[in-house]
Structure formats: structure tokens, C-alpha cells
């Protein structure tokens, strides 16, 4: 029964996965191709550096015209993670609660597969889903040198991993809430609400003192909010994101075992 349920779930999400990947790639391609027009624009860079609120609105700090700053401001600190989260929260809510509601889970859970194995396969599908936007983004950046855009590839790879983990974490929240409540709406609502709050905390932390103290609680801070594309991902960043993923996944199993599946 090798991963047949992982493959089934990914097949059922194929359109949205491919569509989002193509959309993200096309957008990022334009961003990368536009870099030569902005890289020497010192006024833009100075304006954002002198106006930390405007910078925070983009979820960036530091120079916007450096390769890392440009990618951060246009993709990796904001739009990229949000697209990745859209996919994972959508799948997380659908994988248990959504499929329970539409009757498919009742049929699969009655097959010769334990709930633990079922959850394992869905968690793997979530991991694959979480990788889609970050990996396609990394791939598009590989053409950056054609447009004078040469980020630090190791840091870009690290942020690819941290963004995927961030997306996995919020998808896992949706999965957990779905397993606890059996409600797709609750799963979507709670995970999206937490993600929005976490994003705000991380992006406003540099300019609002009170929020600054809360940034530790935001997974965005550990993934992209501490300017990881410029300064690099630390082991602590990675550890926090992995531990969150592990706790959420572990907490989902007992809830999923208790869930009544119609």
C-alpha cells in the first residue's frame, strides 16, 4: 500500500498545486526580470531605509535594491510564504475535516489502514504541498544571474527550507483543528486567523515596541521575518520550526483517532 493515499490526496489537489506553482513562477519571473531596472535606484532604497513603517508593510528590512532585499521585498518575505500557506492551510483543512465532510474519508478509513498510517500518509502529502511554492521559487531564482540578480544561494536554499517548514506548520494547525472538530470551516478559520496574526506580529515587530516583544511567538519571525535571506538561517530558527511541526503532528494523532468519521 505504498503511499497510495498520499498520492491520491496529491492527485485530488493537482489543479490547485500546479496552478499556484505556475502563478508563483510567472510572478517571480517578472520580479526577477525587473531587477535590472531597480537595482541602481538609490532613491527607492533610501526611502524604504528611512521609512521603517513602509518597509515593515512589505515585510522587509535592509536594502531593497540588493539581490536579497529585492527578492525579500517582492516574494520571500510576504507573497511567497502567503501563497505557500494558502496551499498548506487549504490541504490541511481538506485532508481530514474536508474529506470527512464529503464522505471520502469514511470510505478510506474503512480500508485496511490504521488511523496512524492514514495520518502519516496525509502528513507526507502536506510536506509535499508545503514544498511546492518554495521550491518553484528557488528554481525561478536560478535564472537570476541572467538579470544581474545573484543572491547567496546557500541562504536562498535555507529560506526555501524555512518557508516550506513555515507553510507545513500552519497546514498542520489546520489538520489538527480539523481532526479535533471535524469541521473544515473551523480548520480553515483558525489556521488562517493564526497565520494572519503571526504575519502581522513578525512584520510589525521592527517598528512597534509592544509587538517586537511578541515576535518570538510568530513562526514567520523564525522563517523569514528576521531577514534570513540576507543574514542566513540559524539552527535555532530551524529548530523552532521543526519542533512546532513535530508537536502539531504528534497532537493530531490522538484527536484523529477519536474523530467520528461519517
Amino acid at each position: 500500500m505504498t503511499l497510495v493515499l498520499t498520492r491520491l490526496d496529491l492527485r485530488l489537489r493537482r489543479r490547485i498545486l500546479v496552478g499556484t506553482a505556475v502563478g508563483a513562477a510567472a510572478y517571480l519571473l517578472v520580479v526577477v526580470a525587473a531587477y535590472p531596472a531597480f537595482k541602481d535606484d538609490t532613491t527607492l532604497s533610501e526611502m524604504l531605509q528611512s521609512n521603517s513603517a513602509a518597509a515593515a508593510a512589505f515585510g522587509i528590512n535592509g536594502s531593497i535594491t540588493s539581490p536579497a532585499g529585492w527578492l525579500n521585498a517582492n516574494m520571500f518575505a510576504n507573497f511567497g510564504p502567503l501563497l505557500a500557506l494558502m496551499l498548506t492551510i487549504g490541504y490541511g483543512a481538506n485532508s481530514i475535516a474536508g474529506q470527512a465532510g464529503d464522505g471520502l474519508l469514511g470510505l478510506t478509513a474503512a480500508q485496511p489502514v490504521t488511523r496512524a498510517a492514514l495520518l502519516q500518509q496525509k502528513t507526507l502529502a502536506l510536506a509535499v504541498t508545503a514544498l511546492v511554492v518554495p521550491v518553484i521559487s528557488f528554481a525561478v531564482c536560478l535564472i537570476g544571474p541572467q538579470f544581474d540578480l545573484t543572491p547567496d544561494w546557500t541562504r536562498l536554499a535555507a529560506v526555501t527550507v524555512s518557508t516550506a517548514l513555515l507553510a507545513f506548520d500552519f497546514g498542520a494547525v489546520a489538520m489538527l483543528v480539523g481532526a479535533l472538530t471535524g469541521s473544515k470551516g473551523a480548520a480553515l478559520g483558525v489556521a488562517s486567523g493564526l497565520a494572519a496574526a503571526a504575519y502581522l506580529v513578525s512584520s510589525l515587530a521592527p517598528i512597534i515596541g509592544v509587538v517586537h516583544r511578541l515576535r518570538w511567538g510568530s513562526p514567520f519571525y523564525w522563517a523569514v521575518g528576521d531577514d534570513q535571506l540576507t543574514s542566513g538561517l540559524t539552527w535555532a530558527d530551524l529548530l523552532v520550526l521543526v519542533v512546532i511541526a513535530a508537536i502539531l503532528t504528534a497532537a493530531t494523532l490522538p484527536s484523529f483517532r477519536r474523530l467520528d468519521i461519517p
Partner: protein
Amino acid sequence: MSTPPISLDRLTKAFGSRRAVEDVSLTVPEGKVFGFLGPNGAGKSTTIRCLLGLYRPTSGTARLLGRDPATGSAAFRREVGYLPGELHLPDRLNGADILARFGRIRGLRDTAYRDSLVDRFGADVTRPLGILSKGNKQKLGLVLAFMARPRLLVLDEPTSGLDPLLQDEFDTLLKETVADGRTVLLSSHDLNEVQRVADRVAIIRAGRVVVDDTIESLRARVPHTMEAAFDHDVDTSCLADVPGVTVTATAPRTVRLGWSGPVGPLLSAVAALGPEDVVARPVDLDELFHDYYRDSGGDAA
């Protein structure tokens, strides 16, 4: 004696304060078709979901092939085929894709029997499920349930959406299945379907089992009906004194009555009144069934 394929002991499932099934005890013997009857909302699907480990019982126990379905290994489920009451398959996939994927989950290697079922039911396996009719989806559901030749089949309203010819094919398949020594739990709200194929039947109403008996002994229990017509006015009050007889309607020249037990004393009593015509109707389980159904009020899921 071997473990029965299905046994439920005082099974209760509550959703909040509402009890969908209450104190349901049943034993389904091996190699039989067991009819599980009840009006819509009586608790049939809830009982089945508890049995399959999809719902956790509030109290009581369910045993599927001797195992607690909610815990431990799932390997024994290879021996169980399930058709849900509301079959939902992914709209974008076609039947062949679905059958292949579920075949892999079940470790199905020999697909000859599966393919023969596809042919017998004329299941459409090429078009996406989203554009198939309910009946065509149901055919695929039947193939999914039967394809691995499981020891036990749990079928929730299996013939809904099937045309009469396919219902006959389904009846034949059930007969072949039990002839093979395998067991079928057949949930339905249609008595005719159940009395055609089942050996034993349980009737559930408002979450409780109200009858659990063989079809044969239910027939014996149901009153036969007789109507007698006369060319003169008669006093039929003497008929009510015959043991086992209930007079259900009477007019000066006709009488309608129900009886159970031996017919001899009744015939003698009617003959003595000099009837012009006598019509006796065969046992009609429907009447019994409707008696059990009445007042159900639909107060359970």
C-alpha cells in the same frame, strides 16, 4: 463454534444528548445474508459506522470478525468490504483510477474477479465520476466492496439508484457470495429487497432494535388475511371467538379478518355461515413491517 462475523453488545452512540442508537445487540451468523431494516434516520448507518470503527461507541461493544474495529492492526479489514450509504467518490477521477487505487490499498493482485464485476454491472470506468449518474457511481461502489472477495460485506443501502435489472444481478451476486460461505450485512429501508435475499432480519426503529428474527419465523408471526362474502346477512361475531382470529372489518354481507396459527377451526366456522366466496391472501410482511415502522417519528439519525 466459530466467532460470528459481527457481534454488537448493548451498543450506544450519542451525539451530545441525542442518542442515535441505543442498546443495540446483534449477532450476525457466518455465511448468511442478514437484513438490517429500518426507516430513514432509524440509526442503521450510525450502527454500521460504529461497527466499522468509523464512530467510537459511547458505550457497549462492537466486534468485527472478532476484533475491536477501533483499535490495533487494520490488516483484518482486508476481510471486510464496505459500501457506504452515501457514496462519495472524487469527481475528477474515473472508475478505473478509483478501482486501481483502492485495489492497491487492499493489496489486490488478481483483478480478474474485479473486472468480471465491472462487466456484470456494466460499470462505466472511463468517464470522470463527476459526470456519472448516481446509479453508475453506485455500480462502482458495489465493485469496490466486492472486488477483493471479502469474508464479510457491509452494505449500506446498496441498491439505491440501481435499475430493476441490476437489482436482480445484485441479488444473484448476494446468493453467490453466501454460497461461498461468506457473510453479508445488508442495510435497507426496503423490506421487499431484504425479504428476497436475507435469511435473518433485524428491524431498527428510533435507534433501538425492535425485531431480530428469521424471515421464516416472521412470516409465521404475521397474520394471514381472509375476506368472506355472503349472499345473505350474517352475524359474524362467532368468528371472533375462534382462537388466533381478529375480525378487522365487518358489514352485513362481508367480513375481513386476520388469523395466525392453524386455519382448520377458522374454515369450519366460516363454512358454517354458508359463504358465497372466500379469498385468503398470502402472508404480507409489509403489514408487519409498517406496524414496526409506525410511530417511529424519525427521531434518530
